[in-house]
């Protein structure tokens, strides 16, 4: 697993010189086999090229997941950096190992306030060089936090002086020949060493670090690349994927906790945010975020933030609220086979049910409404909902949404480029308008479409529509005008900004004879809902439409509106990309 640390190393440097104080794991590696003895096939012919070129095997400093090939002295000389590099990110790659840390200078408590009283402390993580850039950044952050906590504790009570003293003594106490014994003693005596051990173990097992430095400062840290991959087998969730998901949060989404609410107490802890507790009290996977905010008496923005927090820490995921019309299918990488541990887990929660049978109901896109008939007993229905929630929590199901693509002519969009520009302009306009009440830039994209609708409907289009309404009423009153003329008139007006060719094609559709249909079509089309970016549910939410209205419209205009079903790319990322 390339995100696990190979080793954690603690180095200090002060007026007495540099020293490696502690590293974990420190168990001595018996290096019997000489390095780089790849087993060769005895039958291979020696390749002539090989002899001439002798490609030197790249040296490796990793042996069975542990760091090898460096003595403690070398490590300490590498990590006791020059003052110019202090309080900055430190990154060094040697062969196939990447070291990352944040060298921190701290003022020793009982020394005078000059250069001799300064100590450099560097908590360095040895990673495989394969580790991606984002993993390195996360480890740097952890090292930086360690540094800040230690600096504070030194200032408060001289913690670092005391701990380093104990460690140095243990090294000097005649254990010089056997560093492992010295490290053992240090681990027993020093709380800082046991913190490092706990940190290493946490990082390797769950990716969630929770330690108390000097029983005083809580340091919690989450390595998202590790936390989010327990169910994905090898696929790594990068922090930017999570960001993308969080930017796509909408008020109609809902929160799905991955653990029972009762267990969340451990996570919120003693000094957790009270609003988080308030939100969890009101939590239900059937509520959308807007309702949840109202019920918990929090602002929607704050609920977004809390959701983002829970998602980042892999305590929750985002779904579309469970309702009768939701269509589910089996997630493409659902780990369902006869030997899957999930089978037993499912039967424990739902005795007398079989996961495979339950999942196989969703082989074809199936909605909850299709599964419950009116004769169905209410308890059956609640059981069904519970199993669906369970399967969503375990990322076995994926929800399908219907997207709509407007293709007016045989050749596609007539002036796709023009249209893109226009959309771009209108979206820019909505950003400008929305920024007045959006607190932070990061939420722009989220706000864009909601605010976009309100702004767009206030812009001239609305005026022209109301004009048109009054006009058509007038026309009705004037009895002399023929129906044919009337039709021409409002049609032309409604689709004025459409290219001629598109307009011609749209008028071939019989539904254009009904003013309401055409008006709705033109409105939705202008707002760019038919570009495959919005699913039906989103359009319903934003435009306050009923599903039947929208479905009728889609059916009437099916010659130019093509629908397809797929997952919502933003929120489906935890199960499939």
């Amino acid at each position: 697993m390339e995100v696990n640390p190979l080793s954690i190393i603690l180095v200090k440097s002060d007026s007495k010189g540099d020293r490696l104080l502690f590293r974990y794991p420190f168990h001595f590696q018996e290096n019997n086999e000489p390095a780089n003895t790849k087993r060769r096939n005895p039958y291979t012919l020696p390749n002539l090229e090989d002899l001439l070129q002798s490609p030197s095997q790249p040296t490796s400093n990793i042996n069975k997941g542990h760091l090898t090939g460096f003595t403690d002295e070398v490590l300490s000389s590498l990590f006791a950096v020059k003052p110019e590099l202090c309080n900055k990110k430190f990154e060094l790659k040697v062969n196939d190992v990447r070291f990352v840390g944040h060298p921190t200078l701290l003022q020793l408590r009982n020394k005078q306030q000059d250069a001799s009283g300064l100590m450099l402390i560097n908590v360095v993580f040895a990673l495989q060089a394969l580790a991606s850039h984002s993993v390195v950044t996360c480890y740097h952050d952890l090292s930086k936090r360690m540094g800040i906590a230690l600096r504070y504790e030194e200032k408060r009570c001289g913690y670092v002086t005391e701990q380093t003293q104990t460690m140095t003594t243990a090294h000097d106490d005649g254990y010089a020949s056997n560093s492992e014994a010295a490290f053992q003693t240090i681990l027993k005596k020093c709380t800082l060493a046991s913190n490092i051990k706990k940190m290493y173990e946490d990082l390797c097992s769950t990716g969630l670090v929770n330690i108390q430095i000097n029983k005083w400062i809580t340091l919690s840290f989450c390595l998202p690349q590790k936390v989010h991959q327990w169910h994905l087998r090898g696929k790594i969730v990068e922090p930017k994927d999570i960001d993308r998901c969080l930017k796509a949060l909408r008020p109609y989404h809902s929160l799905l906790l991955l653990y029972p609410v009762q267990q969340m107490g451990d996570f919120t802890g003693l000094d957790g945010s009270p609003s988080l507790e308030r939100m969890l009290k009101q939590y239900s996977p059937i509520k959308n975020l807007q309702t949840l905010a109202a019920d918990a008496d929090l602002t929607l923005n704050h609920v977004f933030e809390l959701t983002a927090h829970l998602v980042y820490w892999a305590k929750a995921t985002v779904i579309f609220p469970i309702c009768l019309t939701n269509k589910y299918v089996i997630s493409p990488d659902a780990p369902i086979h006869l030997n899957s541990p999930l089978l037993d887990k499912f039967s424990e929660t739902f005795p007398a049910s079989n996961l495979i049978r339950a999942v196989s109901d969703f082989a074809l896109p199936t909605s909850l409404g299709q599964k419950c008939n009116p004769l169905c007993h209410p308890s059956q229905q609640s059981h069904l909902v519970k199993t669906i929630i369970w399967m969503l929590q375990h990322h076995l199901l994926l929800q399908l949404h219907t997207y709509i693509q407007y293709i007016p002519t045989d050749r596609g969009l007539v002036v796709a480029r023009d249209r893109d520009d226009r959309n771009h302009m209108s979206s820019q306009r909505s950003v400008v308008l929305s920024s007045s009440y959006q607190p932070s830039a990061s939420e722009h994209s989220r706000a864009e479409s909601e605010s976009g609708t309100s702004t767009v409907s206030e812009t001239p289009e609305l005026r022209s529509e109301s004009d048109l309404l009054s006009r058509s009423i007038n026309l009705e009153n004037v009895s002399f005008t023929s129906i044919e003329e009337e039709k021409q008139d409002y049609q032309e007006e409604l689709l004025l900004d459409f290219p001629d060719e598109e307009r011609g094609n749209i008028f071939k559709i019989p539904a254009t004879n009904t003013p309401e249909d055409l008006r709705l079509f033109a409105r939705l089309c202008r707002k760019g809902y038919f570009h495959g970016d919005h699913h039906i549910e989103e359009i319903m939410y934003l435009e306050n439409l009923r599903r039947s209205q929208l479905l009728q419209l889609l059916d009437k205009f099916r010659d130019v509106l093509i629908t397809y079903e797929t997952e919502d790319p933003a929120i489906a990322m935890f199960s499939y990309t």
Partner: protein
Amino acid sequence: MENIGYVSNHFEPNGQEGPIRCIFFCEFHPTAGPIISCQEPEQYISKELFDSVSVYIITKAELQRSTITVTLSDYKILGFPVRIDDKKYPRNAYHFNLCLVCDSNVRTVHYEPVVTKLSDYLMAMEIESNFLSSGKASTKLAPILKQVIEELNTKGECALTEGPTATHLKVVHIRSDPSPVADHQVPVFIKELPNQQWDLTTQQVTPYIDGFNHVARIAALSDVENNLVKACMQNLVYYGVVALVPLFQYGNVYCTTPHLKLLAHDINLQSRCLKYVAASQRQLPNFRDVFRMFAAMTRGTTIRDLCLRFNPSNLRVNERKLVQFGVLEGLIRRVHKYPILLSESSELQKSLSGAANLDEICCATCVTTQQLEDQLERDHNVVLLWK
């Protein structure tokens, strides 16, 4: 094919490519300590900066001959410290390091072999003719460094003919390992096979890659052992010549992915798509028809159903090509069927455990999909999962 598995374990994902900003040669001076004796372009790395990181450049004995990269806030310095032991030197040893400097946010792993080779070249010249230690290093070395940085940045390769031996440097881009190839996958050329001397297996196999033959069939047709064909395919996938798609059958089911919306917006993709899926190049199909066919692909709709509904030959669409294009571009995705046997029957449970899909089972047992599906349909203990 010997290139398989060459991808070294020094691979560094994400991070952009970037040019070499500077190349410098530094040595351990007997009195002055570590100094930069030659730099191209001049004064790129300041004395102060160099002093703060010199410990990673002229290193302790244990770190000799290791590739060391140190990342600073603005620069990334990649070096390969070398020491030559000889009584003739003032301290009985001569230390030097040839370093490349790049921007701090770019990846440098692909330059590691270059640095190693260049260092070895300089070392050979030093041993033969005291090229470096004779004190005139800067005058002789500067043109070499200039040539290296210019040619590597522009051409990606460089040939040095200074001295008695010549050496060739080349930046080799590191790609990720290709995944193993399965019997039932179909290779498709995604670009023309580069015109070069391929190994015998590749020469024998490539004529049978037509976008429709699967790996096992290619092995049979070309009379090449199955595993060799797989290795060959893996090699071609690594070089981006071939992509693997699932076997086409009229009973297959595909579903749309969120990428389908790109097809409606990307004009370039549209025209490529129409050319690719056209039944004949003389008259291209309608874009709307093509999009409609893609959009109609859902779970539960086989290609056979689609053909009955749309009659692709009337629309001038070749349905095989349509599916192939969709899969290659990620607009659609194959939905596989995974049979699971729920009753107690140890023999069958092994193959029907849910870990293998119908394609894999059919290919392994040499049964047609139709036969297998009919048989599974009759057994009520078998559950088919579509995913």
